[in-house]
Each structure stands twice: as structure tokens, then as C-alpha cells.
């Protein structure tokens, strides 16, 4: 009998009961891990254990791959028409809509983000992502190309087969849908490892997968650690494609494993140190509001966070004053209190890492303009923090902190700021604030990043591609572009009469 999670929520933001199996989900069933071990799921508001869930090992990955392959060969893949895949995915997102508050509560409990943010953004966008890809399932088009009248030449965009997916803890459900949506729409079967820090919503989705009627083996969830399960997936000889979202450090390992095993196709969504550039002629109020969202959304735990805020000298003082005031007004508190903007960071590890960056900033001589301290004595709460008077070489300017810590840098010259903005190994996102259309678009086009926001930041849409330049990643998620990640192109040449 596998693990189970039952919990009563009695909070200002949400009251309700939840109860669902938390085993590994393989071949349509909830099961224990092969070693019968468990993982503690920790509540980041107080460091206490919420529940224990089954732990997967490399052996479980093998079992999952087998089940996924079986499903691909019989009940899924091109054995299930696009219309069928669409229908099942439609049911799935309708169930997500039905259970949105449960999902939001689980997400807030597990990750520490506030219930309201989880409901309004994470769960809403996740549902929309599955809905979006349900519409692509019966629209997978190859091409017919004219070559010669004695030949019929066309391409098929076939599913790959069993794909491996490894997702992070910062947007657990959202990342689940960004991966599973396009993979299922194109006919693949999936073996997915959620983050061991935030497995609850991923596991809850398995109950919905069952309810929707997906054939067993189409979606398999194996919760475990990176060095065991993640490794097994990226090294697996029978997985031909792996998609990973997480740190650049681990991304390298994934790619290395792929090279050393079966040269599996790899897409990566990694870190960032995204520049947010505010020109003198920006709409000040808007620039402040968006910049706040750019760095402090999700407690700074966003790969595309606008963590380097470049402000032109003419507007610097005014900007900083307003930005500081608004930062001070962000309430840090319990995720289930109705007035919290920010909850705890996700784990002790993350907390330690962020605090150590804050210390390094102080040590290297930057000014803590706002924040810089822990909040309270329990859990992993950190004050929204701004550094000023930085130098480009400082760790807090160069390295991804992944916390509510922004650096504000004064600049003068457009060319200089573009150069500084691009002077990073990352290239995930960027933002430009200016009311001058020429300047706004020129700069947006010059920034070496996969997303350029003009007069906005951190606003995404299921139909628009997202991904990194340089060491921020390989490949694009979302939009029609994601379909390419999960299809193999076969060219077919039919001879209509050429004789040898």
C-alpha cells in the first residue's frame, strides 16, 4: 500500500480537505519505490515535515520507461489520433479548473508561495497551458515539398517515443504543464521527475490523469533525487529525449550524461541574470511597478527575474526612491494569510545560498539599500533586498542569486548599458523601459536574450516562445515552438516512376 497524503487546510486564504495517494505513478498505478524508502516533504514556513512520499530509484526509472514504451507502442503514440489526445487533454485541464483551489493550496503549502499568487498565476497559467496544447494535438503538420513530378516528397512530424523530463521547484505545477503539455499533444509518453522539494502538485496531477482516462504508462511520475533519478533519466539508453529546467550547473551534467549514453536530444531551460533597463524617458511609475514584479515575483525564484536593474542617471534618484518605498511595502508573511505578498524561500539550502550572496555583497562593499536580513525566527523568510553602489565584477552582479535580491546600477550611455547588459554568460530575458519607440525596439533587438520585454517584465503567455540564449538554455518552450522539442522529422520520398 503506497503512501497517502491527507491534510485539512484551515487558513484565512483557504479552508478545505485534501486526500490523495502519493506513491510513484507508474503504468497508471500508485506504487512504492523499489527500495521502499521515502522522502520528507518540508513546509518552508517552519521547516517541519508535511508528509512522506515514496522515493524512486534508478530501478523505478527502468520500470517506468518500460511502461512508457509499452504505452507508446500500443495505446499512445500514433495509435492515438490527435483528436483523441486532444480530448483527453481537454478533460485534464477541465479537472484542473475544477480543483484549482486544491492545487493552489498544495502549491502554497509545499513551495511557500502565497495561496493568492498560486491561484491567480501558477494554477491559472498551468491550466491555460494544458488547454493551449490540447488544441495543438490534432494540428501537427509536416510539409509536402515540390521536388520533381516523378516524386512525392513529404515530411512527417512523428513523436519521439518515451521522453524524460526533469522539472524544478520554483513553479512546480507550471513547469509540469510546460513539459507535459507539448509532449502529450505530439504523442509522446513521459517519465517525469518532479523536484524532491516540491512534489505534491505533480503527484496530485496523477490522480487527475487517471480520472481523465489516459491509458496507463502515458504519464509516469518518479519522484526522487537528482543524483539518483535525474541521473538515471539523463543517462537512460532507452530515453531518446530529455528536457530539463533547473540550474545551469545541473544542465551541464544532463548534457554530459546525454553525450555519454545514447546522444539523446536535450533541451534546457537554465538560469539567468536578466537585465532590466530603465531610460530617462520611461514612464517612471510603470517602470517602478514592473521592476518590482521583475525581481520580487515568486520571491525572486524565477529564472527570468530582472535581477540587474540599470537606471539611467537622469531618472536614477526618483526611481530609486519610489522603488525603495514600494519594496518596503511588500509584506512578507504566511502564504495563507490574505495580505502576504511574499512567503518563505523554498528550502534551507536556498535560504543559506541567498543569505551567503547577501553577505558577499556586504563584504565586497556594495550598499544594502533595503532589506538584507532574515524575517522572523522560523522558516526561510528573507526581506526583499536591494543593493546599490555595486561594481560589475561583484558576485551579486554576476551570479544568479535566485532570491528576492536585486542590484540597481546607474548608467549614462545607451551603448554602454547594452554592453553591460550583454556582458554575462546568461541570456534568458531582458526588459527595456522607454516611451521612445525607436530606442525601445532598437535596444530590445540588441539585447542577447530569448525574451525581450518592452515596458513590461515577467509577463508570459502560452502562445509565445520562451527560452535562453547562451548558457541560459537550449531550445524554446511554449507556443508552437515547443512542438519541435517533442517531434522527430521523417522525410518520405515516394517514387512515382523513376526507373533504375
Amino acid at each position, binding site marked *: 500500500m503506497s503512501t497517502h497524503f491527507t491534510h485539512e487546510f484551515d487558513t484565512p486564504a483557504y479552508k478545505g480537505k485534501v486526500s490523495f495517494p502519493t506513491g510513484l505513478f507508474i503504468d497508471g498505478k500508485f506504487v512504492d519505490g523499489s527500495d521502499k524508502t521515502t522522502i520528507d516533504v518540508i513546509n518552508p514556513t517552519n521547516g517541519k515535515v508535511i508528509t512522506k512520499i515514496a522515493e524512486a530509484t534508478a530501478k523505478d526509472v527502468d520500470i517506468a520507461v518500460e511502461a512508457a514504451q509499452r504505452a507508446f507502442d500500443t495505446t499512445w503514440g500514433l495509435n492515438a489520433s*490527435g*483528436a483523441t489526445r*486532444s*480530448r483527453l487533454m*481537454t478533460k485534464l485541464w477541465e479537472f484542473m479548473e475544477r480543483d484549482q483551489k486544491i492545487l493552489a493550496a498544495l502549491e502554497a503549502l509545499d513551495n511557500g508561495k502565497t495561496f493568492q499568487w498560486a491561484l491567480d498565476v501558477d494554477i491559472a497559467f498551468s491550466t*491555460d497551458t494544458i*488547454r*493551449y496544447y*490540447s*488544441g*495543438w*494535438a*490534432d*494540428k501537427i*503538420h509536416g510539409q509536402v515539398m515540390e521536388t520533381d*513530378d516523378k516524386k*512525392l516528397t513529404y515530411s512527417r512530424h512523428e513523436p519521439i517515443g518515451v521522453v524524460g523530463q526533469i522539472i524544478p521547484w520554483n513553479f512546480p505545477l507550471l513547469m509540469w504543464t510546460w513539459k507535459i503539455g507539448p509532449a502529450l499533444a505530439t504523442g509522446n509518453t513521459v517519465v517525469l521527475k518532479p523536484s524532491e522539494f516540491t512534489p505534491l502538485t505533480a503527484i496530485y496531477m496523477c490522480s487527475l490523469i487517471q480520472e481523465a482516462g489516459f491509458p496507463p504508462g502515458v504519464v509516469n511520475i518518479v519522484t526522487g533525487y537528482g543524483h539518483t533519478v535525474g541521473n538515471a533519466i539523463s543517462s537512460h539508453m532507452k530515453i531518446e529525449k530529455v528536457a530539463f529546467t533547473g540550474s545551469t550547473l545541473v544542465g551541464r551534467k544532463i548534457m554530459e550524461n546525454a553525450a555519454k549514453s545514447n546522444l539523446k536530444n536535450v533541451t534546457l531551460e537554465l538560469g539567468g541574470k536578466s537585465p532590466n533597463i530603465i531610460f530617462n524617458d520611461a514612464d517612471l511609475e510603470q517602470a517602478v511597478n514592473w521592476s518590482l514584479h521583475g525581481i520580487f515575483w515568486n520571491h525572486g525564484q524565477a529564472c527570468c527575474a530582472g535581477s540587474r536593474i540599470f537606471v539611467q542617471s537622469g531618472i536614477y534618484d526618483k526611481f530609486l526612491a519610489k522603488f525603495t518605498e514600494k519594496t518596503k511595502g511588500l509584506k512578507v508573511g504566511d502564504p495563507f494569510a490574505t495580505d502576504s505578498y511574499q512567503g518563505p524561500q523554498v528550502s534551507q539550502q536556498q535560504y543559506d545560498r541567498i543569505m551567503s550572496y547577501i553577505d558577499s555583497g556586504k563584504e565586497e562593499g556594495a550598499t544594502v539599500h533595503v532589506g538584507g536580513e532574515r524575517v522572523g525566527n522560523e522558516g526561510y523568510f528573507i526581506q526583499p533586498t536591494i543593493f546599490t553602489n555595486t561594481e560589475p565584477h561583484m558576485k551579486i552582479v554576476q551570479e544568479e542569486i535566485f532570491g528576492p535580491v536585486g542590484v540597481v546600477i546607474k548608467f549614462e550611455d545607451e551603448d554602454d548599458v547594452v554592453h553591460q547588459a550583454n556582458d554575462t554568460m546568461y541570456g534568458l530575458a531582458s526588459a527595456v523601459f522607454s516611451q521612445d*519607440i*525607436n530606442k525601445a*525596439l*532598437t535596444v530590445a*533587438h540588441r539585447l542577447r536574450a530569448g525574451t525581450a520585454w518592452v515596458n513590461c517584465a515577467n509577463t508570459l503567455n*502560452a*502562445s509565445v516562445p520562451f527560452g535562453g540564449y547562451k548558457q541560459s538554455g537550449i531550445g524554446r518552450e511554449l507556443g*508552437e515552438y515547443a512542438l519541435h522539442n517533442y517531434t522527430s522529422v521523417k522525410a518520405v520520398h*515516394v*517514387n*512515382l*516512376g523513376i526507373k533504375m
Partner: protein
Amino acid sequence: MTDQFSLKLDTPAYKGTVSINTGLFINGQWLKSVNPEKLDVVNPATGKIVTSVEGGCSKDIDIAVDAAEKAYKTSWGLKVPGSTRGQMLLNLAKLIEENADEFAALEALNCGKPFGQAQQEIAGCVNEFKYYAGWADKVHGKTIETTENKMAYTRHEPYGVVAAIIPWNGPMMMLSWKVAPALATGNTIIVKPSELTPLSALKFASLVNEAGIPPGVINIVNGTGPAVGEAMAYHPRIRKLAFTGSTLTGRKIQEASAKSNLKVITLELGGKSPNIIFDDADLEQAIKWASFGIFANMGQACCAGSRIFVQEGIYDKFIEGFAAAAHYLQQNTGDPFSGKALHGPQTSSGQFDRIMSYINSGKTDGAHILSGGERDGNEGYFIKPTIFTEVKPNMKIAQEEIFGPVGVVIKFKTEEEVIEMANNTTYGLACGVFTENVSRAIRVAHALEAGTAWINTYHTIETMVPFGGYKQSGIGREQGEYALENYTQVKAVHINIGLKL
């Protein structure tokens, strides 16, 4: 104010009530027309009048255009994101699905389709709305590289108010083929169903508000061609019109566009589609598909495989099997609600007369009747599945679209010969090729001048694959991604990034 029509049916195929509002559905409301003349609705299985519905006139079209324009500017168009439009279409699909059997009953009652076939069409209609719901937030323009001094991109914008005139041979199916892509791309629409078969569209209208679709986005105005269709075709504020029906009327639509506001038109017209059976075809399958190709829906299909070319080596065996297939249908002819009928009546007395006159012309011209060739029974508009052989290519029955259960069989010798005969027509809607030789199959399919080529199959239409005619069979393509082009216009935007004069 407007009348309700309700009928209780207690039949083997369907037990229940069918109930519709008989008014015009404009701006989310049921209205009477200023035109006092109503349209009689006849049950073609009996020839008896079932009910009558409001028939509109040009004033009603003006009111509908006003409503559709207002909706487009305020509560639809690009004011509403694609994902929301998609959701509305899904809501419609669900509601149709929930009422599927009642829809099927209305089609069977009004058109004469056997109930089971009507059910299949309603299922297709549901899929159509679901399919285009998925396109609604995927209407993409392009960004196009020119120079770095310019940001150039295209928008695929809706037209605004579009009109659809749909035929009587598959009312709900044809309604969905028009409404779904039109709405997905952000247009508002005015639909004129056929005056012969208005019932199912009226049922559909009753679901529009419930689906959450804002008033004025979908308007259903029943009426005749001269009263309503003409008003639509000439209307100065309708930007685009999609028509499915006869080639004759299609010409009038195109003329009206030329004489009014040059509105963009797409046309799905008639056909005289060739179905070519080679010696090496799978004989049993070829017979079945050929029979389906001409006798499905009592031959009332624009893409019917009505000229069946059979290679001489297989000819005798083929016509033997084909005659047996026709005979089998004749023996399973009956009331659409009998639960057993495979073949029903033609949809109207006008159609009945027209088909019978073609049959007589075939006889007069000296063709041989292999099967059928006469009325079936004394009540309603039933015609026996009919096969002509010994047909010369210049006979009327070989040249003109009969739109009934009448197939002509022509013997041929060679591939080159049959391709030429098959293409010798003003039409070009569909074609079929039966052979087990893959090279020949594809070669011939590529050589035939038709918008759809079926290989070793017939009449298998897919929501995601384009459909439409070459030559005088039509202009434009429906279905698939291609339909989106019918309902969008391309705007190119050039943003100057720093180029100074």
C-alpha cells in the same frame, strides 16, 4: 412573440420531443420578420408540411448587420483574446453534444437522412467546433526580416461582419464548417440556412446565448435566396461571404460582389467527380467505396463520385457487384426514423423532379439502366439507387451534376485515356482512384484536376484536411488550417526604427 414548434416523436430510432423557436435569431433575441410570408417546412419522407418558420427579408439583414457590427467593435473581434473565443466554441460544442440526438432527429425529419447518418453528421459538427476552438489562440502572423532599421510584421485580422449561405444537404455540418473558423478568427457572422432545411440551425441558435456568446456575434436569418441571400450578397457592410450551393447560384454571388462592395467570397459549388477503378483494384473494396461514393446521403453530396470509370479488365465483375450494392440499398430503403433504413428520400419535391428528369434524359439518350431508374413507393420523394451503363461522355447524365442517387459507369482502357476523360469537365471538386499499385495511385491522383483526391477510399473528409474545388467547383478551401485564411485579412505593419529622412 415568435412561435415555438414542438413535435413529439415516438419512433424506433428516436423517442423524444424536438422543439425549436421559429423566429429569426438576431442580436441574441428571437424576432419576427417584417416579411409576413413564412417558410413551409416539409418532411420529405411523407411530402407533408411539418411546420412553418419566419422567413426574413433585406430589412432583417440590415438589422443583423448592425448587431453584428456592434458586437464586433465591442464584445468580439480582437477585443476578446483568442483563448476566450476558443472557450466559447468549446461551450457550443458541448451544448450541441448534449443535445445531439435532438439535432439528429431534426436533420432526419427535415432532410430525410436516416437517423444514424444524421447522428454521424452531428458528431462531425461537434468535432468541427472543438477543432477550431483550438485554433482560436493560434492565429499567427509573421515577423519578416527586412533591415535592422525596420520592424516588419503581419497581423491576420478578422474581417468584421461575415455572412454564410449554407445548403440543405448537410445543414448542421455546413453550418459548423462556416461558423467555427469564422468565430475562431474573431469575426461576427450572419448565417442564412437553406429555406428547405431551417430547423437544425434554429435549434443551434437556441444554444448560442447559453454558450456565453455575446449578442450579435452569431445571427441566424432564415429566408429564401432572393429575399435574404441576395440582400447578403449585395450588402455594403458585409465584408466577406462564404457560400456553399449550386454553381449557378455561386455565379450570382460572385456577380453581386462585383456589383456591390467587392466583398471577398469563397465558394463551394457542385461537382461531377470521377471515381476511377483500375484492373488491379481490390475489387470488393472498390465496389463498396464506389457505392458509398455515389449513394451516400442519397447522392446529395457536392463531392459525390458520380462518374465511375472502370477499366475493361475488371468491368464485368465490377458492375455485377455494383448493381448488387445498389439493390441492397434499395431493399433497405425506408423512413429515416425506422432505425433500419440505409437509404432515405431526396430532400425536396424540386430535387425529386430534377433527378427524375435526368433519369429520363439518360433513358432518352440511350444509356442502359443497370439498377433502379424510377421512383420508390408512392409517398415522399424516394428514388431507387440508380446505375446507368453504356454511357457516352457527352450525355447530359455524364456531364451535368444530378445531385441524386444516380451513378454513371464508363468503361476505359488506359491510364492516359481515363485521366483525360476524368478531367474533361468544368467541375473539379473531388476524385477517387482505386488501385493497389502505389506509384500509379499517386501519379493519377496528382494528374486529376480536383481539390480532393481520394486513394482507395471515398467521401472520407477530415476536419483537419482542406476541402474545396478546382475550376468551377469553387474558390477557396474549407477545413484544416486553410480555413483560417478565408476569414482573415493580412495587414502588414512597418515600424521605422530610426530611419530618418
